[in-house]
């Protein structure tokens, strides 16, 4: 998702937590440590930035909190993110997006390409965030994941919303047809 222009606001606030599609390209600096990556995109937040300084003690405590809550398996928070497995990298990305208790989260294929255990953990943490009041826009190509997580489902085809369902009354076959472009 390359923002060509404009800003996203939610409830009057500019800050929107994003779980990007490609964690390697967009979400992580692979040669930075876990602690350094824990504040990526958050470097100007009050409490992280202090005057011209970056509070590395805060970065480390945030990193420890993420590692613990999201079960990131690493020798320490001082190892380069490059050395982590894909699932652990993604748990770090999701943990970082949720650590400031955002009111709005944009999650783009948050479990793509990661193992079953990491997938379950990421999904349950997203549901917890929803239960504590966050609005989550989940964009996913995985229909099972959508059916398992979403309260409301919008099907998009060629940039237009082709259909809208509540979870209570979804029909897999209808969704499948809309995804493929057929009219209702």
């Amino acid at each position, binding site marked *: 998702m390359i923002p060509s222009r404009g800003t996203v606001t939610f409830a009057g606030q500019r800050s929107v937590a994003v779980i990007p599609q490609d964690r390697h390209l967009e979400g992580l600096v*692979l040669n*930075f440590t876990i602690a*350094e990556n824990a504040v990526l*995109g958050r470097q100007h937040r009050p409490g992280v930035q202090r005057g011209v*300084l*970056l509070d590395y003690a805060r970065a480390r405590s945030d990193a420890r909190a993420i590692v613990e809550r999201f079960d990131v398996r690493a020798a320490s928070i001082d190892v380069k993110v490059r*050395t982590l497995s894909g699932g652990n990298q993604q748990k770090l990305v999701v943990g970082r997006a949720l650590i400031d208790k955002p009111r709005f989260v944009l999650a783009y294929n948050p479990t793509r390409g990661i193992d079953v255990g990491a997938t379950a953990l990421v999904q349950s943490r997203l549901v917890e965030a929803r239960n504590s009041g966050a609005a989550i826009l989940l964009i996913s190509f995985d229909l099972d994941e959508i059916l398992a997580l979403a309260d409301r489902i919008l099907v998009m085809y060629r940039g237009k919303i082709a259909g809208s369902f509540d979870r209570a009354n979804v029909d897999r076959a209808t969704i499948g047809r809309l995804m493929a472009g057929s009219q209702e």
Partner: protein
Amino acid sequence: MKRFASFISGPLGAIVLIIVLMSIAMLIAGTSPIDGFTALILGSLGGRNQIGETLVATSALLFPALGICLAFRAGLFNIGAEGQLLVGGLFAGAVGAAITMPPFPAIVIMLVLGAVGGGLWGAIAGWMKAKLHANEIISTLMLNFVAQFITLYLVDGPLKNPAANGAETAWLPTNYWLPTLIPHTRLSIGLLIALALAMLLQFVFARTVFGYELRAAGEAPEAARRSGVNLSRLTWLALAISGAFAGLGGATIVTGELHRFNTQLSPGYGFIAIAVALVGDLDPLKVCVASFAFGILEAGGLAMQASAQVPKDAIHVIEGLIILVLAARRYVAQRSERIEGAANV
């Protein structure tokens, strides 16, 4: 094979390899390596004068090397330190010859304007990169020639000292000279300024938000951009600061050693500084050590030529070899890291 690779990629291995390559270069030049190294060491560290000259070269290399270090860490290949150094030196020399005021503010003004001059020269390439997407390797390299000829024109024309034979500005009044650090040598307190700058740069990298964003942009520009880093602002700022470091270096040479500006200010410090920055692993404190090592080569090289008949050009061959060794070292280190990383998945 694996042990050999890890030895070669370590600092000790690099030193051994460089000594072996230097010996080969001396043998080709027809000198015994023992005589050559003796001359090199005596000529650079053998007495107060020699140490002074070594530290003069160390200081002259350290300013542009730190600037290059900052640019490279931001992912920008500033090859233009030579021109930035010249412009900074010209600003300092021209202003110093023109103003009349107490020495302390005069020296401060010369140094600050030297940094401004080099900074402007770096900012041109930065602006071209940020706004026009001009490749900074080409633009910084080409701006060297522009700087060289503009400064030559100015000191051979409008700014020429009519009393001098060559193309140079008027001499600075003696109370505008930077104080000497080691008595009876040419070494000025410019070296202390350079060392302070290295510590400041280390602090900026390790502790500030600007340093964090700069390193992120250098390592992963796309991730940095999506994390709210303004890449075009960072690009011109990094090249401007990088140029300011080199320009300040030029100003310290003018006020500290030359006491006037001419275009022979630098025997290629801005280019050698690229090797210095790479040898120092783009780490400001290691760059200080690397500057000293290259200072030994610069000062000792002259002595090698005089007493061991090793041509000065052999020193440049050696410097080229050192860059090659270090490039190979980085490659070996990256490969073994990748293999380790793959094993951890």
